[in-house]
């Protein structure tokens, strides 16, 4: 058993044309997915990153530089992550494939988390 992280890259979707009913339907799909993963005992956690504020910090030649971002140039941002448990990478991949994020313009980066011990 190992833990895997689903890094959710997203193109900020324009939901302004969505009706209340459609917004709720999309949300229900996400919820159904995470509940299913939970019911299978594979859910570890998930967090959403805030949309509206972020900066890049870099150290160049010993100087820290703080720049606005990632939104100014990047078309994609990391919107959040889910952590899941799986026997192996193939199983984690199967679980990730069902994530509705992929239906709504998002991209998922699936990585195994290195055990701490």
């Amino acid at each position, binding site marked *: 058993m190992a833990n895997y992280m689903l890094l959710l890259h997203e193109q900020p979707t324009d939901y302004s044309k969505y009706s209340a*009913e459609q917004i709720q339907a999309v949300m229900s799909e996400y919820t159904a997915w995470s509940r299913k993963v939970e019911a299978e005992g594979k859910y570890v956690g998930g967090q959403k990153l805030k949309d509206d504020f972020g900066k890049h910090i870099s150290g160049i030649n010993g100087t820290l530089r703080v720049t606005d971002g990632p939104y100014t140039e990047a078309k994609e941002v990391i919107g959040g992550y889910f952590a899941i448990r799986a026997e192996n990478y193939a199983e984690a991949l199967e679980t990730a494939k069902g994530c509705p994020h992929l239906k709504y313009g998002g991209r998922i980066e699936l990585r195994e988390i290195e055990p701490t011990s």
Partner: protein
Amino acid sequence: MIQISETETQESIDHLFRHHAWQMVSVLCRIFGFDKLDLVEDAVQDAQIAALKKWPFSGFPDNPRAWLTEVAKNRVLDQLRREKKLDGTGDEDNLIADFTDYSSLYFLNEISDDQLRMIFACCHPANAPDAQVALTLKIVGGFSIAEIAGAYLSSEAAAAKIITRAKKKLRKNGVRLEMPQPSETGERLAPVLKVLYLIFNEGYAASTGDELIRTDLCFEAIRLCEFLSKHPVTASPKVHALAALFLFQGSRLASRVDQAGELVLLADQDRKSWDKEMIGRALKHFRLSASGGELSDFHLEAEIAALHTLAGTYKTTDWPRILKCYENLQKHSFSPVVELNRIVALGKINGPKNALAQLEQMDASNLQNYTLFHIIRAQFLSDLGEAGSALESYKTAMSLTQNEAILKFLRKKSRRVTSV
């Protein structure tokens, strides 16, 4: 009073976002002003989008409605600050002073008052009925422009235009969010009930359009009518009569189309499949509708719907009583559609020959494009063995509808007539 969390049914959770929009818009418009309606509507949508992005990760908050309202309120405040409508000198504290305890019982009464004021504003007589309907669906029903356009077979641009104009008219007429004076409640309630009636009929009438949205229209009319029946300002025998009518009719919604997608007439419906829970609610409203001295059109229509719904079989339906109700309706105000229904009831008592004679006699100039008129005519002709003329009427009916369920039904009927 309206209970928010305790009596929540699965149906209302499934449609939480749409149904709750009305509550949020009403409360926020009380706080920020009716003139901020557009801003408030955008903020409510933003809050829902924020929930969409957050809740899949965090799970549902303990009180989703309070969460959504809080986020929407902050969006409005942000926007007002951006527009420099607020200067940070404490005005905003006054604005939101009474906004702290969202779940207190006192506040629940306040909320339902807000919602009622919003209904009255949307159905304000300054606007024509179609604009009232569109506004009500948008603001009170929480439907999107696309959904409204889908239900009424208009373009999104046309639907949006109606709504923009209707809002403008309200502004121009200085309409505020307020409860009518007790002396004018009846007068202001009349267009509200008419709007609900139109919404229900649009959903119930078998023409064209998105079937799912059409069913939603019926449930929306029922939801709003039951809201009015519970609010002390609007609860009245007439409102109960309308709720009874909707619920008796609504109990048959799912039985009108069979698994093959073909229209099933009342005579052939499986009565056991009718929604018993809705019939129970209908009966409760029907009893309450009889508590006053008034016999409105809604009372008569509710009685007709009750007689149909409560008959054990189609054959044992109390046709003489139904005929009487239609005659009384005609006395109130003549309508060709009611006349058509009266003739159908008459046919059940006097036979098709007499009914057809009356049908041919009536002024049907307004009904030439009405599918049901030609179906009924075809039925009478078919009962009388006049296959050729019956087929002609079925064909006319087919040319008037694009509804697949009705077309399937009519194709079958036409085949039967020709094979006899």
